[in-house]
């Protein structure tokens, strides 16, 4: 199974500013001076091998959209959430299909705006012959998708989309088979509710658990999540806040922290923790620091089981 991250930011899309860009360019030029970088090839090799990742890398800024490819011969597409990353995801599938229609299976954690805002810009929705099946546990799923395309919010009403679009109701705790993929939703603590998904296919499994607050005093709920994450090849986890913020000034805001992610994944013996739903106020330097610290925490608290920690970024591809 392969994961492809099209949007990893929480709440609101962000981008590098011109100031960020200018500073990076200036630092990169200084770092590369005297190295004979007189061709694009040499410069690319230098950036790839020698330049500080803080200068050569960005976590990106699209809101949540994570594609998974179960493998096998199936021609259908699968994606969790339709944040602003869905625009690039749509371009990708249209290019790959080269004019041949296909089916896209969408799994919606919830319908807050950052998770649906990419759909009006999702190219396949405007293509005749395409089939889009939007799965979720919220009864308001269809209403939310239609509402954001109604005037005065957007110029193209939902009824004018050319693709065949279906809404499929899922039930929390009940596993469903969707085109060879086993999907089990789980209710999470978030304003208006959100749902995590445990997704299994071809002997691999991962959990998509974003917009989920974990209340430390609720031991039974924590044990439920440990069972939900049990032995997963990857857990995509809402690590928006620091633990201190999540339990104090941002308690009840519906999000979690890197520290809770490490603890739950260690208890669940998950193989990989993927920090996700990055705080839009955090720049690349802050996110790189959080990743480094989370890896250190895993090292400090490691028992017999080693947990790999990565931070999702727009464009990350991961083979499970």
């Amino acid at each position, binding site marked *: 199974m392969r994961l492809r991250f099209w949007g990893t930011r929480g709440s609101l899309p962000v981008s590098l500013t011109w100031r960020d860009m200018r500073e990076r360019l200036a630092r990169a030029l200084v770092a590369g001076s005297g190295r004979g970088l007189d061709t694009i090839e040499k410069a690319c090799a230098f950036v790839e091998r020698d330049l500080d990742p803080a200068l050569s890398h960005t976590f990106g800024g699209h809101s949540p959209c994570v594609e998974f490819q179960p493998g096998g011969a199936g021609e259908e597409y699968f994606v969790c959430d339709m944040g602003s990353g869905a625009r690039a995801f749509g371009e990708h599938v249209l290019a790959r299909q080269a004019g041949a229609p296909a089916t896209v299976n969408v799994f919606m954690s919830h319908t807050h705006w950052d998770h649906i805002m990419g759909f009006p810009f999702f190219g396949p929705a405007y293509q005749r012959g395409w089939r889009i099946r939007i799965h979720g546990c919220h009864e308001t799923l269809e209403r939310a998708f239609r509402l954001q395309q109604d005037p005065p919010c957007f110029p193209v009403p939902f009824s004018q989309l050319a693709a065949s679009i279906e809404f499929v109701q899922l039930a929390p705790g009940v596993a469903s088979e969707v085109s060879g993929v086993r999907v089990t939703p789980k209710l999470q603590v978030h304003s208006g509710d959100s749902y995590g998904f445990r997704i299994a296919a071809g002997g691999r499994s991962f959990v998509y658990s974003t917009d989920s607050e974990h209340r*430390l005093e609720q031991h039974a709920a924590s044990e439920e999540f440990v069972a939900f994450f049990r032995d997963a090849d990857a857990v995509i986890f809402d690590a928006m806040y620091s633990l*201190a913020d999540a*339990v104090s000034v941002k308690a009840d805001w519906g999000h979690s922290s890197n*520290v*809770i992610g490490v603890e739950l994944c260690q208890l669940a013996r998950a193989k990989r923790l993927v920090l996700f739903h990055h705080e839009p106020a955090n720049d690349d330097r802050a996110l790189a620091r959080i990743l480094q610290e989370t890896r250190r925490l895993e090292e400090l608290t490691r028992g017999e089981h080693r947990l790999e920690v990565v931070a999702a970024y727009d464009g990350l591809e991961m083979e499970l």
Partner: protein
Amino acid sequence: MTLNPRAYADTLVLAPAGRLDHESCDAFRADLQPHLERALGASGGIVFDLSGLEYISSGGLRCFMLASNEARARGGKIVVAAPKPVVAEIFQISRFNLIFDVHPTLRQALAAVSPQAAAAFDTR
């Protein structure tokens, strides 16, 4: 959990030891409560001496935060002293170092809470 209470003038020092995690958190809170009542009732400060603490989880940190909130609501203050390197790192990674004043030694923590407590420490 044994808290090994010690008083320095108007300041109470409590020293949780071992591991403070979701399994020991409830016992810690139960053992802490009478000390909180006594110290805060007397308008004194509290220092958590963490020199014997080997590990603290998110649940343990939350216990500290609840105690701190209670102290603050009653006009008192809790500070942290002498964490081992591992515990100090966990405070920093979780950003609990922004919620608590963390002092490298017990003497420095006492001085931050009360000059009388620091003087009492020096005379022992």
